[in-house]
């Protein structure tokens, strides 16, 4: 059994409920124990960092300090939490004065951070520590014949806190392969979906999503898989907005990679939160469920 401090991220309580549910569901068959970081708070987040970089580092530091006490690696399924926590971690280690100011602030909550936490993305753990080879041995219902577009989004591989190539990431392709499915190659697999600007600059984001959906479909994809809560929500919940704006009729299910892995492991639809998916994946997955 491998033990991790688990950081679900705020979206796990709302838009990305399916990611958290399915991450927990696949942990058991993979002999992983995801121990939720007790009483975690927001990771710091990109919007917070944009309005006040230093303060967002102090917000992140509370979680890092809590994680340090566990002595475990801090694993998050959310690409955005991963980048935010990694960035705060790096800045704290590189800027001694900032570290001491942050520690002075953490002291009011009886916390202290020394810079010893390793922040990891769940997909990276699956790739490097669990490995696709072992994942393949747990597959009960191989997804043979299923054409999947692995969608990395941005923060799985950029900037370089992680492990995957920023221009030609491969982790999701390998994971999809290990399930018996076919990872469809398509050039936009690591391009941006618009992120949170879908709220404030919808036209910009819908245009980026249209290109992604078109690129995946034109290369034969029957569904998309992604690790990122924002990407999943955008492509899933706003797919109908893309369709009405561009007079298209995309009907492409968007699954979290953890959901796809779970389907191949023979877990049921409820265990994987498949009912939270807005574009229904049941038809495409019918023969595997």
């Amino acid at each position, binding site marked *: 059994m491998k033990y991790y401090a688990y950081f679900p991220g*705020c*979206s796990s*309580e*709302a*838009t*990305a*409920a*399916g990611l958290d549910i399915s991450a927990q569901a696949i942990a058991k068959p993979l002999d992983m124990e995801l121990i939720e970081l007790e*009483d*975690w*708070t*927001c990771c710091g*987040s*990109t*919007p*917070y*960092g*944009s*309005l*006040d*970089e*230093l*303060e967002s580092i*102090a*917000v992140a530091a*509370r979680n890092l300090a809590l994680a340090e006490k566990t002595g475990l690696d801090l694993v998050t399924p959310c690409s955005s939490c991963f980048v935010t926590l990694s*960035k705060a971690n790096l*800045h704290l280690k*590189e*800027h001694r004065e*900032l570290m001491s*100011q942050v520690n*002075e*602030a953490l*002291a*009011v*909550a009886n*916390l202290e951070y020394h810079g010893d936490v390793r922040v990891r993305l769940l997909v990276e753990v699956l790739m490097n520590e669990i490995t696709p080879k072992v994942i393949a041995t747990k597959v009960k219902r191989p997804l043979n014949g299923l054409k999947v577009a692995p969608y990395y989004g*941005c*923060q799985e591989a*950029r*900037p370089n806190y992680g492990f995957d190539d*920023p*221009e030609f990431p491969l982790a999701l392709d390998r994971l999809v392969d290990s399930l018996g499915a076919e990872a469809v190659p398509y050039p936009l697999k690591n*391009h*941006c979906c618009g*992120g*949170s*600007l879908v*709220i*404030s*600059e919808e036209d*910009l984001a819908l245009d*980026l999503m249209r290109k992604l959906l078109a690129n995946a479909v034109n290369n034969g994809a029957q569904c998309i898989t992604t690790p990122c809560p924002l990407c999943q929500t955008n492509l899933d*919940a*706003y797919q109908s*907005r893309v369709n009405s704006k561009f007079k298209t009729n995309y009907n492409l299910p968007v699954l979290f990679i953890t959901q796809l892995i779970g389907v191949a492991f023979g877990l049921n639809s409820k265990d994987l939160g498949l*009912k*939270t998916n*807005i574009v229904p994946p049941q038809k495409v997955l019918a023969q595997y469920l």
Partner: protein
Amino acid sequence: MEKTRANTFVEEVSAVPGGEGIRLCIQCGTCTASCPSATRWEYTPSGVIAMIRAGMRDEILSSSSMWHCLSCYFCTVRCPRNVKPTELFHILEGLASQYGFKIKETRTPAMYRSFVSSIKGNGRVHEFGMMFRYYLTTNPLAALKMLPVGLQLFSHRRMPLLPRKVKGKDDLSKIIQKFREVRGG
């Protein structure tokens, strides 16, 4: 030596963690060429960097340019000088907010403020509350247009109306308050 106008703004930007690379830019334009939203920027990403170097503080901080940054980090991984443009744009957004520049061309600052206020109020982001506040403070009528998306999320159990109680909320508030004192002093 007396500081020039340019010097001061470059120093202000480079003093924030992540902004150290500002002096390394060679204006190759790779960031602009890599940016998925560059066509929406009032000044292009590389243009903004040149303007920082030229000390055009108020011109940049009052512009909507950097608020179109999607944080995709393509510019950052492709920059041949390791300038980290994404970090620079976040720093500019932060300075613009700190000094109270009002941006009319985009609602991204209002969206970010709603997001951060949700974190401060709940300890975690409560997405429904964040969206509610955002539409209330910008354009309540626009919320009607987004109602179908919201209802879909709600009916798929992805948009709880009430935030969860987070025990650490008060500790987080105290940490933020203390950090403000420490960094200010």
